[in-house]
């Protein structure tokens, strides 16, 4: 497979996963903030969206105030925001277009159809439909696209590289979501910790990672900081948990079989192996206290892994 195609497939997967997480996070936080008791809570929710996507500074360059309409448009449809959902969907489509000769027609058509769908939105249509419907459309499209990835592709390098992009991006988004929520919780008045405000934030975290129901089934409603972090970081059987995705990446990278000495410290296989196995032998007790620091470090390692992959195998 051409390195350029490999690069496009990898980013195809990453953009799909990124669009989905940004859409879900925005939807969950904005919709829940609508009937939040205090204006301050609403502001926290809006800031949290900017933080998670990492566009605080970019937003304030363009807008002087924090308003619902400006933020929602900036996150969803603004072409000038390189991390907006529309930009992501454009990225999905451009990468699918560049790899038309590798992917299935079903995958291409759903991507193309959805791109045109989003391209037809303007501020008025967006207002009319609302963020809830818009995000749900995006989430459903991403699920549909991943369904076609799952069900119409041969299990060869094409599928493996898209999957690599999906799971690497999912691991990164999880780190960012967990970190943003830890930060939001850290802002709570210490006197109110342990009360409904904190538990509300933990619920937001589970819903942002699309894991609220599975968490409840697993822990039978015994939610605590420890249980929630344990579930999202260490559960080996849940597809939105960090360790699940790292194990997936480890297997995936081995299966692609890049031409490298597996045991050299600089190799991709070595680095992902180290990261994945480290997680397997850590416990929640060991990271609970410094969870934010742990998430930041893990995120850095994931960024380095992605950079190494691109520099070594996907340059053209």
């Amino acid at each position, binding site marked *: *497979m051409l390195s350029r195609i*490999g690069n496009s497939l990898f980013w195809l997967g990453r953009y799909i996963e990124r669009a989905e997480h940004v859409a879900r996070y925005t939807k969950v936080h904005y919709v829940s903030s609508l009937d939040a008791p205090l204006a301050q809570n609403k502001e926290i929710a809006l800031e949290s969206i900017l933080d998670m996507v990492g566009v605080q500074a970019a937003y304030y360059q363009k807008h002087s105030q924090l308003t619902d309409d400006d933020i929602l448009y900036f996150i969803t449809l603004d072409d000038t925001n390189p991390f907006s959902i529309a930009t992501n969907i454009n990225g999905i489509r451009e990468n699918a277009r560049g790899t038309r*000769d590798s992917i299935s027609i079903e995958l291409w058509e759903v991507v193309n159809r959805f791109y*045109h769908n989003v391209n037809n939105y303007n501020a008025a249509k967006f207002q009319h439909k609302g963020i809830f419907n818009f995000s749900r459309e995006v989430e459903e499209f991403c699920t549909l696209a991943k369904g076609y990835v799952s069900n119409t592709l041969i299990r060869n390098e094409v599928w493996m590289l898209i999957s690599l992009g999906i799971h690497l991006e999912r691991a990164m988004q999880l780190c960012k979501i967990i970190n943003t929520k830890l930060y939001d919780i850290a802002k709570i008045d210490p006197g109110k910790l342990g009360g409904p405000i904190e538990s509300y934030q933990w619920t937001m975290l589970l819903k942002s990672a699309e894991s609220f129901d599975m968490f409840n089934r697993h822990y039978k409603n015994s939610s605590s900081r420890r249980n929630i972090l344990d579930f999202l970081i260490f559960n080996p059987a849940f597809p939105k948990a960090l360790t699940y995705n790292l194990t997936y990446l480890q297997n995936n990278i081995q299966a692609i079989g890049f031409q490298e000495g597996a045991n050299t410290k600089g190799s991709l296989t070595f680095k992902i192996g180290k990261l994945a196995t480290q997680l397997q032998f850590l416990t929640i007790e060991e990271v609970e206290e410094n969870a934010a620091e742990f998430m930041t470090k893990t995120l850095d390692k994931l960024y380095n892994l992605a950079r190494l992959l691109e520099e070594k195998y996907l340059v053209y």
Partner: protein
Amino acid sequence: MNNVRNFEMYKGIFQDYHLNPAFLDEVFSLDGEVLPHYRLVLDQFKHFTADDFKELNELAKVSFFNQGVTFAVYSDKARGVERIFPFDLFPRIISAQDWSHLERGVIQRNMAINLFIQDIYHKKQILRDGIVPPELIFSSSHYTKAMLGFNPVGNIYNHISGTDLIKHRDGQYYVLEDNVRCPSGVSYVLSNREAMKKTLFNLFRKHNILSVQDYPQQLLAIMQSVAPESDNEPNCVVLTPGVYNSAYYEHAFLALNMGIPLVEGRDLFVDRNYVYMKTIYGPQKVDVIYRRIDDPFIDPLAFNPDSVLGIPGILGAYREGNVTLLNAPGTGAADDKAVYSYVPAIIKYYLDEEPILNNVHTYRCEIDSDYHYVLEHMEELVVKPVDESGGYGILVGSSSTREQREELKRAIKANRRKYIAQPIMSLSLHSTFIEDENKFEGRHIDLRTYTLLGKDKQFVLKGGLSRVALTKGSLVVNSSQGGGSKDTWVLAPGP
């Protein structure tokens, strides 16, 4: 059921259909009778209302749009606006008899052109024998010195040719143009057929229509037939300028349907006169390249140093015989309009056969009788200088002023060798669904056929691209001028 129907019987959609006696109509004879090979389609169409057509038309458009069968229109919007190539639901039908004539004709023509290209890069016998003037060839910007004395595999140069034809008032096909560089449009032929099968499936049951679906397999077989000798299966690729090229859809379509990689210049490199592509597992040798990049951009070392599309050194690898390029560089010296007028002579010279297809009659002002005819009949002619392209210096007699004609006459007198003239051709009309009018009207059409030549292999796509001038009365069918296209059916021989 009667055998012959008058079109006025077709209530509704053909009720006001207007026949223009100045042109040949592909569907109806002059007295309004439906031509035999269109009868079954019209029998079906009479059950449809204009609204039915509008609906089918919309369905087809949505299908094209969703498939991404589009070309980009540049605008100030960040993301480009995309348009579909307008598609008409009334198929153009070519009888088995007409087709067999056309098919033999385009093969003959393109085989002769191939021999001609070989000759002008080797012995130049046809030039020595005075059949074609040498200065015509040597002055061509497409004449490529790098090809001198070089033998491509199987001695094939124009592997893929797109021959443009029209049907004239006299009922005969005439060749308008030979395209032997990178003729495009074949993906629309296949996509049009798919759209027709989805929307008007009932029509197909009643006709025996030859398939167009084998084109990609035939093209791949042609590519493999001209691969450099090797112990391994040859690696074939399609080379595109990239996703922003207006024909990118076609490049991807062909690669996908042949099951071979679609590459860009930046994916390839040359090492010790071999071509490689950069893969996730390291370099991989490439043997055959169907390139959709024009000569001047293919090798920055040999041609245009500013080009970022090409591959430095690829021409060296080609001349060493380590890679095959389709079409060969330098074929353009054989498809300009000056050479066009010599094609009948070229056919006779190399094949010793009479040309099967007509050329549009060409008057060469260097010949006395032609010269006098041109001066006296300028209003009925198109006059062209032989050494210009892109429409420069062309005079269409019927729409010229007296001053323009007088000025041109002086120019011809001063340099008779430089000018040719042709009668103004009347492209046939085909009834076409006009969205804005919500009814069928006659529109001018042409036909591009696709011929493949390989080592001991010839193939003509059974159909082609019928382009339609959607503007009433216009003779210009180009997509850039708002043209559309029709599915083109070739009927199987026999009852």
